[in-house]
């Protein structure tokens, strides 16, 4: 599917972010196309989280611009970003473990019988939609009223992703969705991402530390190091050791076995 679209869904040009005298991002260009998984890779502290926080409206960039569907945008709050179709699934997922799947799915955007905070919830309709939307990307919830706390980590990821898509995300940002999960659940999440990828109209930015996962699912790669892009390319362009090397910040990794054998 890579390269299908000519026009990027979201693009950044020369993005700079400084925290006081510290430069977290130093002129980052990024292009993400619909129907593609774009892996954002880099060592700890490279600036990945800072970049996606800018894209999702949490931080304002010091310099540079964000272009969504050809138009330059400026976000002053996460709400603005959501409104522009950028859905971010954070590591903590922004879920309330104590309440049900449905209540989490519609948190902040409940369907009610009449407007205003005291509008009665359309619980049946909400249950149905939540179940359907999660089924679309591969998870069958047995009971939409089960507390989120009783769900597996993979299911929670799916819930957060399904929620973002249902509420109009064209760009889906996933911040290390597999990092805190067991082997099986990691696969579950990757399958979910694959399903979204196949929709064809959603651009996915995937932050990961896991080279294997990136290689399995990503169509395009961008490598960050010390706040700058040090490499990019499609899955065809990059081969074997390139990814490993770039992920470590560009430094040549010697034979690991040799290094360890003191």
């Amino acid at each position, binding site marked *: 599917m890579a390269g299908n679209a000519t026009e990027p869904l979201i693009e950044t040009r020369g993005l700079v972010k400084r925290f006081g005298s510290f430069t977290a991002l130093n002129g980052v260009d990024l292009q993400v196309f619909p129907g593609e998984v774009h892996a954002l890779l880099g060592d700890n502290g490279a600036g990945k989280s800072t970049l996606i926080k800018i894209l999702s409206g949490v931080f304002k960039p010091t310099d540079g611009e964000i272009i969504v569907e050809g138009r330059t945008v400026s976000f002053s709050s996460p709400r603005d970003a959501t409104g522009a179709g950028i859905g971010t699934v*954070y590591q903590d997922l922004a879920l*309330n473990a104590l309440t049900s799947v449905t209540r989490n799915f519609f*948190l902040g955007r409940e369907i009610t019988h009449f407007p205003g*905070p005291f509008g009665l919830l359309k619980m049946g309709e909400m249950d149905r939609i939540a179940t359907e939307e999660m089924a679309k990307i591969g998870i069958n919830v047995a009971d939409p009223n089960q507390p989120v706390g*009783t769900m597996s980590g993979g299911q929670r990821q799916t819930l957060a992703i399904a929620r973002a898509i249902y509420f109009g995300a064209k760009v889906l940002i996933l911040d290390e969705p597999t990092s805190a999960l067991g082997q099986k659940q990691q696969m579950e999440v990757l399958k979910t991402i694959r399903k979204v990828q196949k929709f064809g109209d959603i651009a996915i930015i995937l932050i990961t530390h896991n080279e294997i996962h990136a290689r399995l699912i990503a169509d395009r790669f961008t490598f960050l190091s010390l706040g700058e892009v040090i490499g990019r390319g499609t899955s065809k362009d990059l081969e074997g050791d390139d990814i490993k090397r770039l992920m470590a910040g560009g430094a040549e990794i010697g034979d690991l076995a040799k290094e360890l054998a003191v």
Partner: protein
Amino acid sequence: MTQATTTRKESDRLASKGWLKSLLARPEIGPIGVMLLLFGMLGYFSIPAGEFSLNPFAGEGFNALGIRNNLRVIAQLGIIALGAGLLIIAGEFDLSIGSMIGFAGACMAMVLRWGFAIVIPYISFEGGMHVEFFTLIYIDNISPIGAIMITMCFTLFFGWLQGYIVVRSGLPSFIVTLGGLFFLRGLTEVSLRAFNHRPDQTKGATTVTELPDIKNIIDVPGHGEMERSAAKALPDADLLAILKDVPADTVASLTERLTYTAQRVADAKTQIMAAKGVKPLERALENAIESGNTVMAETIRNKIDTFVVTPTVPKEVTDIDVARAYIDTLGSARPIADFFGGDILQPIFDFLYFPVDWNTNNFGNQFAPGLYSCVMIWVLLAILCYVVLSRTQAGNWIYSTGGNLQAAKANGVPTDRVKISLFVFSAFCATIFATCQVFEVNTADAAKGNLKELEAIAAAVIGGIVMTGGFGTVVGIIVGAFIFGLAKEAFFYIPGIDGSFYRVFLGLVIIASALLNENIRKRIMGTL
């Protein structure tokens, strides 16, 4: 490889949870058990010694008056527990509830008694420097609704202010409302003393007394508005004049009722006299049997069998009695005061006296006139809270604000507004509590509501509210209030133990509930 089974695994797991287990996972199940236990205890122990009955309504605990009084205590606590509980679900505390009750009651009573004024203090230099007051507005003779509104302005503002400080500063609400606790109690005492400086007041008193019995002001035909007790004390001629305009069937039913009461009172008196007369004979009989004096025993037994008291003659029902009874049926001319401080369900309680004869005291009179109005207000508030918390968008926001503040914010929930609203609601509940009290007893006291905030929090915890927020139900809060109210009464009736043991009991229940709640919360969070 059987892939189908692995993908279905999680859901299958959940489905296998039986109904019993899911019932036991309900947060209210433990508290409901304790409530039923206390209900049984109170019913059982309040039955007088020597009588045996499995009917819990046979004893004092649940006779008509017992129900009236117990439900009042429970409802009062229940009202503030709703405010406290919802706030805790949203992750915050309010320790100022008790002081808010004292403040609201005093404010309302002062406004009712002395009116409401807005004064501007300024420094005057005429005749030496001193502070003078310029009265901007002065309103006298304020109606109950006016007094309630004025009080609400103060208390709701104060609730809002506490909430605003909490969300803006990020300080723990524990500290902010602890400040509110001292501030409001002090302010109440200071204000009352200041008013009671006047020559016609008891100097230094922190109470407001001599309020009229507002809820019992009635519109008496031909006499205008007056208190019910004054109306009943009118001269006979006036009473008869009032009766003249009463429809015949009303008079007939009032007379029937009064005749019944007279008969019932006379019967009760006869019974009491009979019991009094027979009791010494029975004691003598016991002695005689013990000492083996069979002849004597036989004589006494005969005496008991033939013992008769002359039945008391029922009192004649006069037109004056009927007129007074009619005055009792007149509705209040101050419906708002009656709404908060009056009685409800009188027709049912009347029916339970005549003809049912259950709501009858030992002397044959009607026992309880009805339930306190605060019970109805509690029920209304509880229904409102239930609907809001479990059926509306606001409810979902409350749960998420307390359950995971960051998640709520990230999803666009206005968490600050949610919290501030609930601080205001807590102040509202405290004010409602005070309103009921003021109109019930027609006095106010700066010490009112002392420690109520802790009782409210305790009731919420007992009812399954988790102190860290995000978890609990309105049904639980209601049950918590029941447990608190029932425990006190139940322990009072247990023979041979100190009534204060109810506090020991409640202390243990609070800790046990907190442990249970935490356990349930962890199970739901998946960390257990």
